[in-house]
Each structure stands twice: as C-alpha cells, then as structure tokens.
C-alpha cells in the first residue's frame, strides 16, 4: 500500500511542468477543511451478525459506519505563464476518524452490537458495544493542479485534481461499552480491531472559487468531490467508498 501510494504520487509529480520558464512561485496558501466519506464496516470477524445486510433487520447487524477527516495545511503555489494552471504542494495535517455505531435507532434496533473479544477453551465471551471510533493523525503531502478556464480579475473559478499521500503519526481508539463495567476490557477489544494502515493515498476532484483584489490577499472556497482512498482497506474498522468535502484557503501572493 505504501509503495503504491508513493508510486502514484511520484507519477503525478512527473506530469507537473518542470520547466522553470513556464511557471513562477505565485503564492503561499493556508488551508483548512474537512471530508466525509460514505463507508461500510470493514470485515471484522469478531462482530456477530452479517454486516453485508447493513439495512436488514432480519438477517444482519445494522451498524452505522462513517469516515470523516478534518485537516489544515500550508502549500506553495506555482502558476503557469499564461495563468491558467496552478500547481501546489506542501504539508498537511489531518485527523481521520472512522466510526462504527448504533447511534441511529432506526427500525428499533438494539442500541448495541455483539463483539467477541475472548475465547478460552469452551468459553466464548462477547461484550456489547454502542460505538467504536478510531482516530488517527496523519502528516501528508498533497499534489494539486488547478485549472482556471476563465479570465477574471477579482473572482476566478477553477477545477482541481489532487493526489495526496498520508503517513500515520498517531492513533487512538474510543470505545463506548453498553455495560460500563466492561470497559476494563478495552485493550482486549482494541487488539481485535483492524488497524489503520501506516500510509494511505487519496485522490480527489474539486471545483472552487477564488476572490480578492489582484496582488492582494486572496480567499478561496472549494467543494471537493468525489474523493476516494486509493485502497479502501487502509482505514481500519471502516471501508470508505466515496467522499465529499470542502476547503477554505487564504493565499498570500509572492513574487508579484
């Protein structure tokens, strides 16, 4: 996974224009935003029930699953000579949270699911859980290409293609036990959960707008979607399918 993400990002980098005459450093950008991904529970063999039947009351265990991320970062931007293309890269911190929960009691589901955490001889032990959240912190390197198809002085629209590779720097698990006394087994439950991958890649498309006076500080807003993990097995307890998000940015022009 790490190799494939890195290879992909390097391939993207190869397609960035490398001729210094055709581009110039144009801005330093600060960004913040968030994503939400539709997700399904990962193959967690210790959960009782058939998670494939995610909406079936009769045959499965209906567990809500979602993956979300919040991020902030800083990038340097290069602009092509004709001003139509902007290439950006930098550093990005993100916190990604995968969640399995029985929060939504649609169809009168029980507010918990069964999780097998220990087997010893003829004894099998389950705990009932309301919610499991895996929080992971990442440092990432984004590579972005923005295309501005129209001219404009104070307002410019763009479309963006982006790839990023993220390296995990920390992770923590939050478990909400239905029976509070069982929280003493948190470590055993945690040990049975799929781990978040050390490295993952994300691809995304976006559309946005930048506005502000020429040669002054610019502000940007973009709506990102679709976004997808390169490998959907990288996110631990959930398997993200497709996501959408938003991004705010502030740009300080340089070399003008």
């Amino acid at each position, binding site marked *: 996974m790490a190799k494939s993400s890195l290879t992909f990002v390097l391939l993207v980098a190869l397609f960035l224009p490398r001729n210094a005459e055709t581009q110039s450093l144009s801005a330093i950008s600060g960004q913040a935003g968030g994503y939400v991904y539709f997700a399904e529970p990962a193959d967690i063999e210790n959960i009782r029930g058939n998670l494939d039947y995610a909406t079936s009351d*009769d045959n499965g265990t209906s567990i809500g699953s979602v993956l979300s991320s919040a991020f902030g970062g800083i990038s340097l931007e290069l602009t092509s000579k004709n001003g139509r293309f902007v290439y950006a890269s930098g550093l990005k911190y993100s916190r990604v949270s995968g969640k399995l929960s029985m929060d939504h009691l649609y169809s009168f589901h029980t507010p918990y699911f*069964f999780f097998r955490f220990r087997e010893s001889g003829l*004894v*099998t*032990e*389950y705990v*009932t859980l309301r919610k499991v959240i895996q929080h992971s912190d990442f440092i990432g390197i984004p590579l972005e290409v923005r295309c501005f198809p129209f001219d404009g002085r104070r307002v410019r629209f763009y479309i963006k293609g982006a790839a990023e590779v993220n390296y995990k720097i920390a992770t923590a698990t939050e478990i909400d036990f*239905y029976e509070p006394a069982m929280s003493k087994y948190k470590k055993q439950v945690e040990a049975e959960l799929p781990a978040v991958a050390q490295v993952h890649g994300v691809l995304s498309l976006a559309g946005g707008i930048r506005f502000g006076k020429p040669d002054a500080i610019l502000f940007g807003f973009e709506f990102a979607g679709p976004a997808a993990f390169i490998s959907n097995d990288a996110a631990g307890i959930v398997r993200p399918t497709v996501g959408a998000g938003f991004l705010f940015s502030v740009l300080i022009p340089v070399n003008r």
Partner: protein
Amino acid sequence: MKTTLLFAVVLTIFLTGCTRETELQRTIFIEDPDAPGLPQYSEWGYNTFGAYFDRLPFVSTHTYVPARFIIDQGATTFQLEGERRESSFGTYGENHMLSFTIPEMDPRDYEDLLALHGITYNLKDIDVFLSIGGIPEAVTVSEGMLKFQRAQHLWVDGKPTQVILSGYFELQGMAGGRAVSIQQGRFDVGIMPGNFFLM
C-alpha cells in the same frame, strides 16, 4: 405534550425490553452460496439450521423456535423445527421437525450440554423421529450421523447466557413406509433456559 411524553416512555420501555437474551434468540440466516436455500455453517449461535430433505431445503424460520432440548424421564431429545420449502428460492413451506434422542446423557442444566463438544453420533444407534405437519414418525436409519462440532459456553458482558451448539447432520432411512434422505445438514443454535426443558 402528554402524548409525546407517553410515546417516549413506551419507546424507552420497548427498547430497554429488548434484552441481550432476546437479541441472541433472533435468527440470523446467512445463505450458503454453495448450498442455495441453506444457511452457511457458523459457530455464532445464529439460531439456524438447514438440510436438503429429498432435495428441498428444510430450514429454520423466524416462526418456529429452531432448536430445543427436552429432558423427560431420563431421555434427552434434541429437536430441530422449521419448514421444508417448496423450492430452493421459496419462502414458505410445511412444518417439519427432526428429533434425535441423545443416549447416555442426563443434563440437569443447559450448561451441561457443553459435554457434547466434539461428539459424533451414529444415527443407526439412536432414536430419530421425523414429524411432518405435526405427525411424528420413527425413522429407521440405514445410514446417518449427528456431529456436535463445537459447544461453547457464551458469556455476554461478564454473565453466562447460553450454550452455542454447532455441527452437522445427515441421514438416509425409512419413515412411515417412505424413504427419506436428509443431506448437508448443519446447525448453529443457542440453548438457554428458554429452550431447555427439564420435565
């Protein structure tokens, strides 16, 4: 306001009334892709069983309690009750019950069923009954077995809850003057005080 409050109280009672035991008694039917109409073999206490009864699926349903243990006058009977479907894709069928009399066993509590772990019975050596539409017939078995692949004592949230019995069965024989064949049988049932009868 009063209506809302009443609804909230009823909802709370309903939700808290769904105990862990009730939830564990639910049937979770996950179809076996290699045996259409039958549940996959599992060891989770999904309260399912299934077999091909003369080629048609004889399976547990949500209507009938899929398994019972009845201990009466020293005889221990293991019953599987469900329906025989009209086809592999059918959803309705006639009530059928298959009963095995387990020899040399006199459990006093459902937890005593753990003794069945890993035990295989030759059905030629034990009494087998087949009930179709409520009429029981003794089965003269020419060949058959009942295998308790795994018995587990299930604890939920630190409390003993049930014994899960998982295994296989199949037989050929005569019942009521008719040849019967039950093949690829598998079961995964939870036994707790609610379906353990000490008469």
